[in-house]
């Protein structure tokens, strides 16, 4: 029998706010253990939570970006369970009356535009982190760091709308891009800013009813999500084909060994005893707040993709790369006025390469090479005032030094104007003087080009620019090749 997988995702985003969800402690990452704590986030007796509006605002903006319905009055609830890294032994979350409902994430999966619908978005607090067990003399001890306890988390739950692992991957990619685009989260799965659990069930293809679902946790990368879900689909398919029953369970995915292990079965499922948090009044988000948050939304990535394709005539691939980060799209648009495709090529290849090599952010790069400077460089290139072969060298100088293209050329003693005309005779002379290497080149042994370049350089008394010489030689050799019978 053919089976169809039905998958729903539950994603957690660590929100990038200055302070924690319910107290004034810094929400930063990487402090000394238990440095960013106070009576509230340690759950000391008598301490009470107070809502961080910045976290609500972040969730609100994500909700508005995804077309969710915003509940004017939502309610915090306590989710009760015991765990040593949870200071109060309950988590303040939202339950039956969440901040946002409905909405969808638009995602292009293999060229097809899809809309993956959501159930809800709400805010809650993160837990601390346990480290265990460690040896301590003859005892084994666990340690808990509460720096993360109380950091704002956003939970986003999808409807069971996915059927294949790659759809989930594309969805998470889009969610990550949007979170960064809106500046609400770093959304790095490896660092735990973005966490994802998946509910997976199988049913005979064409059936309407859902099968028994399992929940997979510990999916720590987009690739891991896809592989974990694929493994679970295979596991369930195998069981069904052997006529076994699927048991409701929570599974952990071990990415290193591509293996699933049962964490708890249905009998051990938690009863979270949710009830409205009596320490917090209902959360009121009025129309003014919604309108103001909506006004602060930037053009959304998918809208921008569409506009950039239409406005600049760029291929979808280019636009996909350029809109991966909002800053990159801004940089492109600021540089692309006259020559969009050229700008796109240079940004996608040279700029992104430079960022990677130097390990710097686009912002840092743009301080050195503002978009206007790149645009001026591209202008020179188009106007043929900067010969193509020289362009990469000038680009490298530009990244390290100040000055416009002319100033850079002058500083490095490169005369561009007329240099090609002056060099052409030298090139012709070298080709005639060295027929052997020319024949070898034409026969496909292109390494001889270096020798020929050296000869022209010698003739020019070292004045010529090697890249220009190389280009002229290639041009001339191509002509010879073309003119041969």
């Amino acid at each position, binding site marked *: 029998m053919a089976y169809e997988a039905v998958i729903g995702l539950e994603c957690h985003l660590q929100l990038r706010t200055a302070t924690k969800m319910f107290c004034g402690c810094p929400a930063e990452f990487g402090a000394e253990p238990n440095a960013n704590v106070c009576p509230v986030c340690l759950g000391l007796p008598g301490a009470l939570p107070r809502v961080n509006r910045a976290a609500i605002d972040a969730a609100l903006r994500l909700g508005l970006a995804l077309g969710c319905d915003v509940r004017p009055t939502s309610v915090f609830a306590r989710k*009760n369970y015991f765990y040593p890294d949870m200071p109060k032994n309950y988590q303040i979350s939202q339950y039956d009356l969440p901040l946002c409902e409905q909405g969808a994430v638009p995602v292009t999966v293999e060229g097809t535009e899809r809309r993956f619908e959501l159930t809800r978005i709400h805010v809650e607090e993160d837990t601390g982190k346990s480290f265990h067990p460690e040896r301590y003399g003859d005892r084994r001890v666990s340690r808990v760091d509460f720096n993360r306890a109380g950091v704002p988390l956003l939970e986003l739950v999808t409807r069971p709308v996915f059927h294949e692992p790659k759809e989930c991957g594309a969805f998470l990619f889009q969610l990550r891009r949007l979170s960064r685009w809106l500046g609400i989260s770093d959304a790095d799965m490896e660092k735990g800013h973005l966490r994802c659990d998946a509910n997976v069930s199988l049913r005979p293809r064409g059936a309407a009813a859902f099968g028994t679902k399992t929940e997979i946790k510990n999916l720590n990368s987009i690739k891991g999500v896809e592989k974990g879900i694929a493994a679970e689909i295979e596991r369930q398919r195998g069981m069904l084909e052997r006529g076994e029953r699927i048991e409701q369970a929570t599974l952990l995915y071990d990415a290193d060994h591509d293996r699933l292990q049962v964490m708890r079965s249905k009998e051990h499922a938690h009863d979270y005893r949710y009830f409205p948090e009596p320490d917090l009044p209902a959360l009121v988000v009025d129309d003014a707040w919604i309108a103001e948050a909506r006004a602060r939304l930037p053009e959304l990535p998918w809208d921008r993709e569409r506009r950039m394709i239409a406005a600049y005539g760029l291929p979808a691939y280019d636009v996909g790369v350029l809109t991966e980060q909002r800053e990159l799209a801004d940089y492109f648009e600021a540089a692309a006025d006259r020559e969009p495709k050229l700008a796109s090529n240079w940004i996608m290849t040279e700029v992104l390469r430079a960022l990677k090599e130097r390990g710097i952010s686009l912002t840092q790069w743009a301080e050195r090479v503002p978009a206007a400077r790149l645009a001026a460089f591209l202008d020179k290139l188009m106007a043929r005032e900067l010969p193509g072969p020289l362009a990469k060298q000038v680009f490298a100088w530009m990244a390290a030094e100040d000055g416009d293209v002319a100033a850079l050329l002058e500083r490095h003693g490169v005369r561009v104007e007329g240099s090609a005309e002056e060099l052409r005779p030298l090139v012709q002379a070298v080709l005639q003087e060295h027929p052997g290497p020319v024949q070898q080149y034409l026969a496909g042994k292109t390494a001889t080009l270096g020798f020929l370049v050296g000869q022209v350089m010698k003739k020019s008394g070292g004045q010529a620019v090697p890249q220009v010489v190389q280009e002229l030689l290639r041009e001339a050799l191509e002509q010879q090749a073309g003119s041969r019978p």
Partner: protein
Amino acid sequence: MSANELWRLSAAALARRVAAGTDVAAAVESGWEGPGAAWEADVHAVVHADRAARRAGAEAAKPGPLKGVPVLVKDNLCTTDYPTTCASRILAGWRSPYDATVITRLREAGAVIAGKGNMDEFAMGSSTEYSCYGPTRNPYDLERVPGGSSGGPAAAVAYGLCTLGLGSDTGGSVRQPAAFCGVFGLKPTYGRLSRYGLVAFGSSLDQVGIFARHAGDVAATYQALAGPDPFDATTRLTRAPDVSRWDAGVRGLTFGWPANLWQEGCDPEVVEGLERAAEWLERAGARRAALEFLPGEYAVATYYLVATAEASSNLARFDGVRYGFRHPDSADVLALYTRTRSAGFGPEVQRRILLGTYALSAGYYDAYYLTAQRARTRIRREYDEAFAHCDLMLMPVAPTLPFRIGEKTEDPLAMYLSDIFTIGANLAGIPGLSVPLEPARNGLPRAVQLLGAPDSEPALLRAGRALEVRGDVARLPRENEVEFAWPTKR
């Protein structure tokens, strides 16, 4: 008056003395040095006291309306200078790194924290018998309970150890011990006194409350403590009502007279007290409005569902992981939890945690917790309706006079039912004032309760003052201090 008689003064008079040059330390120590030590040995109102801490507090006392006034604070309010243990083994030795907001405000007003008062463990009880430190005794009869759960501060204020007391009132825990000890006890409107630093029992019901021997002292303390607190999101955002006219009399006020409430099950001495109080209020110019009032029908059930549900969650944090008592012998985390909590919590606390956990469990939530929430909304509406016909309501605090130690500890339901007249105010979020009357024939304290709509503290205190002067309008102005009826030890 000699220094060792300062303990007899009202807070207002004591602060006046201090402002006029009396040594703060002398004002604070007076209660401990006078007959206090002998009384305390019998009554056992105090669980944490420290002469050095009192000295330091006296030295640091700020200028303010309560400068030099000693306050005994219930052991569930966080203080940096004394342990905070909720009279529970599970918090043995725990010292808070922060002061509760009400403690900060007391200090800002010049008051000195004199120590921590005994209580029922985690404020669960009506007699101050369920304390890991042993019971507090009623200063009027050492064989009887002082009421609870804030029995320690109530008793200490009654016999003169401290001028003021702070307690907490989740279902009557300030008003009932005030009544049993013959002092004033105010439970303010929910959200008027910050709960930040009050160890939670039932968060939606808890309010910090005030003990004093004089209506004016309740007003002065309320004035110093009430108002919005950014650290407690459930405080009301508006300014607290002005209670400075607590001696303005009751002319023009209408008080409800829900006589149906005490038709049965009430001690005749209690009923007689109510009639006496009504006459005094009328003599002072208030109008009596008879009304039928029956919110008590489901109130006890509703209260014990809401309070235990919230408590089961609030008390989850006491697990031996971060602070307080940890069972020494636990092989894994589950054993750590169960052994710590089984050994750390007393039986009444365990009973309520179990009840609350059950009420919130899957499959029972709708039947219990949700139904209780609906009942609570109805009870609130019934109070609203009643206050459309009167400014205040006069009713009993408890159906009986102080009962004997051990009388109800074996019968939890009887103990729960003794809260029947006080829990309504907590469910409805309204203020209530317990006002001492003349003692009953057997010499035990007797009191009435005044209830009002939210923010009616000014009217409650005016009526409380009218009863303090026994309706004698000529004595109403605040200059006429009323001598407190002190207990005489048996």
